[in-house]
């Protein structure tokens, strides 16, 4: 319980009337207090990190960062209630896993249910971060391919367009994303990127390497069992026999 015995709330939505209605609906709850509002993904992320709210009402489509990308960047996410007009994001999976998913426009009763669910969670002290995380994974599990990847370096957020990625390398629990100018660490698995990057462009040439064929220069024969891929910038990457096969298929050799 907080010192002032109120739960703190942040509303993140790029449309003022959409924030307004949440404010209106929340007036009925004396133990909930709005501590911040944001109109885009970046400032929303900052607000959550600084204000450490207990509950966040989060839109999905917003400037700078989407609600999903924002949530993905949080190490210790608060309870999240999505509030969005999108119904194509595997709503069912959401309703099973997330604290709640409000489809705009929603009634006071529907909003009340979401708040009750969140309050139950808060009073019991279960933040269910695993539930939220699994929601993200189930949403990401859609066939939608990534067009960009949001990464956080210390306190700065970078959004990388996938076409700027040269290759990705496994690095313990992380994956290093090599772009033309820089490299970034992302806490994800190689499997995740293998599934969510365009398979026509991104080929897993090795257990620990995925390359972007646009940045590939040459294929070199090493010995019987292995091949080397020479990238345009001169980087030499090892390919397994299976990876070499995949690459050949992708390049229609």
């Amino acid at each position, binding site marked *: 319980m907080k010192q002032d015995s109120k739960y703190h709330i942040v509303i993140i939505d*790029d449309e*003022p009337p959409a924030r307004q209605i949440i404010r209106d609906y929340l007036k009925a709850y004396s133990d909930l207090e709005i501590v911040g509002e944001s*109109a885009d993904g970046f400032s929303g992320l900052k607000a959550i990190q600084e204000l450490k709210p207990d509950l966040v009402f989060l839109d999905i489509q917003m*400037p*700078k960062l*989407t609600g999903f990308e924002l949530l993905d960047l949080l190490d210790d996410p608060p309870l999240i209630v999505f509030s969005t007009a999108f119904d194509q994001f595997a709503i069912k999976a959401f309703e099973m896993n997330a604290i709640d998913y409000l489809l*705009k*426009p*929603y009634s006071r009763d529907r909003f009340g249910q979401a708040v009750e669910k969140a309050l139950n969670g808060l009073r019991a002290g279960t933040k269910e971060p695993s539930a939220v995380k699994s929601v993200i994974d189930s949403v990401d599990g859609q066939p939608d391919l990534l067009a960009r990847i949001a990464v956080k370096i210390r306190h700065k957020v970078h959004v*990388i367009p996938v076409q700027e990625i040269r290759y990705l390398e496994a690095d313990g629990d992380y994956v290093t994303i090599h772009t033309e100018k820089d490299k970034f660490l992302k806490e994800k698995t190689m499997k995740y990127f293998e599934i969510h990057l365009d398979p026509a462009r991104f080929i897993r040439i090795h257990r620990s390497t995925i390359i972007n064929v646009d940045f590939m220069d040459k294929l070199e024969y090493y010995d019987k069992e292995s091949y080397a891929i020479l990238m345009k910038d001169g980087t030499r990457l090892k390919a397994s026999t299976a990876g070499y096969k995949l690459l050949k298929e992708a390049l229609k050799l």
Partner: protein
Amino acid sequence: MQHPVFKNTKSIVLYFGIWILLAGIQFIILIFQYHFPLEIALADSLVFNLLFAAIALPMWFTVRYSSPSSGWRFNILFNHLTSLVLLIVIWIGVAYSILALVFQNETVYNDFLTVSIPMRLISGVLLYVLVGLIYYLLIYNFNLQEKLKMEARLHSLLKETELNMLKSQINPHFLFNSLNSISSLTVTDPEKARDMVIKLSDFLRYSVSSGADSMTSLPEEFENIKRYLEIEKVRFGDKLRYDLRVGENCHNQKIPVMLLQPLYENAIKHGVYESSDQVKIETECMVGTGYTDISIVNDFDPDAVPRVGAGVGLNNIRERLRLTYQRNDLLKTWKEGNRYFVRLRIPE
């Protein structure tokens, strides 16, 4: 269209069946009217009729390539006369030679063969006309079926286009967010909520009431754009600003209905949706000789990383322009710094 006799075995059997029937009638007449012996009557009727059946087959091509729709009537007449004379000469010549040779000792029949030539000529002409008419009838029927099929296909294609257009016009995301704004305004500003309901209704009515191929006047199209932008302005407040400068001189221009809307939707999508700064959409209309230029300029955040591949809306417009004006060069878009330019040229 292929030869109707050789379409399948059934049609071949039917064709020769009819000729054998005709031969049968001739056979009966020769027996009972002229009292010829059986073998002579059989030979005469079979030879004449089956020979005609065989040499009437190529007639199809005369008919096929002399259709009244393919022009010059005199040419058609000439083709048929040539083909008729050729057919009759071959027909009577060959049949006469065969029969005269086989029955050279039957003087009565030989006389009959010679005497009957004028009658055979007349029946040949009549048969030619009959076969020709049947062929023309078949072609006419075939063309009619084809035309009906084509019309049905065109109709369904048009319907599909219309449906796709409607789908692209009323973006459900836009609709639900607008409804959410209305829901919010009912508490804070009921007057404004009612205003928004009316704008949204007018916008939807305009979108669904017109077909894919209908034209409207430029002021009417801009009236709808204004509604659209006003609705978006309620959603996004001061973040969106717009300026529609459409002078009196543009008022006579016609434009395909809902052609402009996707351009503004794009400006909102890539400008307002992706930026946290204020976005201004400026529209100007200029009249040149034989055309009207519409320019739409909007701010956007050049650092914003695209989430999904854009361009569907623009391709749609290009396709509609191509279908309406048969031109590919009417829509131009480009970027300069943080401003996105669209120039649309509409021929008069």
